[in-house]
């Protein structure tokens, strides 16, 4: 097997590696690069919206920015970041030597950068990049789309393939490679949430592929899936898209739940409260995600019975989600808490994600959604769950496991500073968007009515603060890797539990070549 060698030298190490830690590292760096790229698009959006009127960019380019920002952040930053984390942590958490399919693992990463390279290249094409929003509703994305839409479809196919391969690998690893004694109900919650996420991905990424395939056929092969003239229906697009899109929301947030379920117990120095109910709540959320999709499209003209069904089914999701929030809070109850950077980001997640959950409940109410629909209120809502939910928890994960990964300690003061700047910047950006949204400001517009000027200026200032705090994060991580204080403690955090804390620090290139004993 040749398992007892270290990493190869040079570029070949990264191109041909089948090591889960190398691949995890590449996923994480790639996703951070995409985070910066998507963030740059967001900065252009906020710069244009700093004042009413048109200052910096053409409206068409503005639309390309909102579209590319959404696509790059969802598919390029958040999803690969969690896949990278899964690659690094799942084998170490279940006592496996590597992922079940190391060569496919290499492929699932390496097809990702080309997919985003061609997606980004649409910005330079004639007619510009896709400008129809990240949800690419037909007929905007078919009849009225720029020529680059074909390239966009291809890149969605490739990144979907990458996601499917990655998730098959994760399921195969978790189901077959657990150390003896590691029963399903002993698995760390991060592994559980990723197992369920991977099943969601296998189920719905092909639906997205089908959706863009139908677009491709409508555009180039004369079919009329989404064209009323040929007997199709544009509303069908929205059903197919959201049948993928709603589970996608949980694909993004479930691993985040897993991360904070590891971190909060560690810094509360108590075991996770209600482990079993956490597992069942995760599974319930995953199941419900398949039967609520049309709450994204209350205004398309559904029958009242349909509106009511989707409204009640959506509200039902608040129950398992509430169980989770209750369990996290109960974990902290009377715990010996300390507030290092990973814990701060987890607590930030907990507070802000709950706010995002509540605005989600408001949006689930069909009659009020008619007012909120496509307003900045929706933008505020999903940034509370995507950024303060997924990105905060991802940041917490990096601070939490970075010492284990590289054997060096990050600068705690800088980490805490990063948290507070992020927290303030984030809220300054997105909290006022609730107000302008309720007052009637539509999303995806480059200009707005004068009464929204003050709140938009606050939003833009907040966005610049939040954006620049990520530079501090990048600096802190690089400084840690290059010149951080070396640590060889197996357990960086005294309250941390799990197999990953039993291996030496920094984690050797190969771990658990013989399975550990699990009590």
């Amino acid at each position, binding site marked *: 097997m040749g398992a007892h060698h270290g990493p190869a030298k040079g570029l070949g190490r990264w191109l041909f590696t089948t090591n889960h830690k190398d691949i995890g590292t590449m996923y994480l760096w790639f996703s951070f690069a995409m985070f910066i790229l998507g963030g740059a698009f967001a900065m252009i959006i906020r710069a244009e919206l700093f004042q009413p009127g048109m200052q910096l960019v053409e409206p068409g380019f503005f639309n390309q920015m909102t579209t590319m920002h959404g696509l790059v952040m969802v598919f390029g930053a958040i999803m690969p970041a969690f896949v990278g984390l899964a690659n690094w942590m799942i084998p170490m958490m279940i006592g496996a030597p590597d992922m079940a399919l190391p060569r496919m693992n290499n492929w699932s990463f390496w097809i990702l950068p080309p997919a985003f390279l061609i997606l980004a290249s649409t910005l330079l094409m004639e007619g510009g990049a896709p400008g129809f929003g990240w949800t690419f509703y037909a007929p905007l994305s078919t009849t009225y789309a720029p020529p680059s839409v074909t390239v966009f479809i291809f890149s969605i196919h490739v990144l979907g393939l990458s996601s*499917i391969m990655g998730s098959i690998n994760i399921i195969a690893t978790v189901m077959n490679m657990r150390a003896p004694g590691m029963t399903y109900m002993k698995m760390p919650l991060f592994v559980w949430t990723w197992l369920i996420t991977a099943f969601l991905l296998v189920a719905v990424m*092909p*639906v997205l592929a089908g959706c863009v395939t139908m677009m491709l056929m409508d555009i180039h092969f004369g079919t009329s899936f989404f064209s009323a*003239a040929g007997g199709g229906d544009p509303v069908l697009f929205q059903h*197919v898209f959201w049948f993928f899109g709603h589970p996608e929301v949980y694909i993004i947030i479930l691993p985040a739940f897993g991360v904070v379920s590891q971190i909060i117990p560690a810094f509360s120095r108590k075991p996770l409260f209600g482990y079993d109910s956490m597992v069942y709540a995760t599974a319930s959320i995953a199941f419900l995600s398949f039967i609520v999709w049309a709450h994204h499209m209350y205004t398309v003209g559904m029958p009242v019975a349909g509106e009511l069904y989707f409204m009640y089914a959506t509200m039902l999701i608040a129950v398992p989600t509430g169980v989770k929030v209750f369990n996290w809070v109960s974990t902290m109850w009377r715990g010996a808490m300390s507030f290092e950077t990973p814990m701060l980001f987890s607590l930030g997640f907990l507070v802000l994600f709950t706010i995002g959950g509540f605005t989600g409940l408001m949006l689930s109410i069909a009659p009020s959604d008619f007012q909120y629909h496509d307003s900045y209120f929706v933008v505020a809502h999903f940034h509370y769950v995507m950024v303060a939910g997924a990105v905060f928890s991802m940041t917490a994960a990096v601070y939490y496991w970075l010492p284990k990964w590289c054997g060096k300690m990050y600068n705690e003061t800088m980490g805490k500073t990063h948290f507070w700047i992020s927290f303030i910047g984030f809220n300054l950006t997105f909290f006022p968007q609730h107000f302008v949204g309720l007052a009637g400001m539509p999303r995806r517009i480059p200009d707005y009515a004068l009464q929204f000027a003050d709140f938009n200026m606050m939003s833009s200032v907040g966005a610049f603060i939040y954006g620049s705090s990520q530079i501090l994060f990048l600096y802190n991580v690089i400084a840690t890797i290059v010149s951080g204080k070396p640590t060889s403690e197996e357990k960086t955090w005294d309250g941390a539990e799990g197999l990953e804390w039993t291996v030496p620090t920094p984690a050797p290139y190969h771990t658990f070549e013989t399975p550990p004993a699990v009590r």
Partner: protein
Amino acid sequence: MLGMKVNPVAATVGKLAVAAVCMFAFVFVVMVPLYNVLCDALGINGKTNSEAYRSVEAAVDESREITIQFIATNNEGMPWDFGPSVSAMKVNPGAVNDTVFLAHNPLTKAMVAQAIPSVSPSRAAEYFHKTECFCFNRQPLDGESSAEMPLQFIVDTDLPRDIRTITLSYTIFDVTDMAGGPVAAR
């Protein structure tokens, strides 16, 4: 490890790959047809019957009159003058009614159009039966010429009594360049 048993990892991967392929197929063979069937069956989106209705013998309900309003819309870029010959008519449920829509092609080239109907309130769609409609087929029209497009319909006697007005809206699409595609059957 090299025994005759099936490698458990390969078995898991095989099942998952099949599941992924099935989900891709599910979009085309289940979701799309199911959507169309549901819309037809429930009259969602105000979709009306897409093929000629075979009239069944039914007594004409003389006790009430339903106002049928006609609306015509040109889809973007469609240059025809297109509209109903009468904007509204009063009909009895169960009776067979005739009207025509008027179309004029102002361009010099021959064109093909497809009209897509929609009924409002959508609840009424399943009670609005077309026995003959220009919307069942594509309508070719030579340049600078006009045509009368016939419509024959029956309002079902089972129409809920609270519905007193039904609006039938047609959007006309230019499908000259869509040759070879499936015929819209609405």
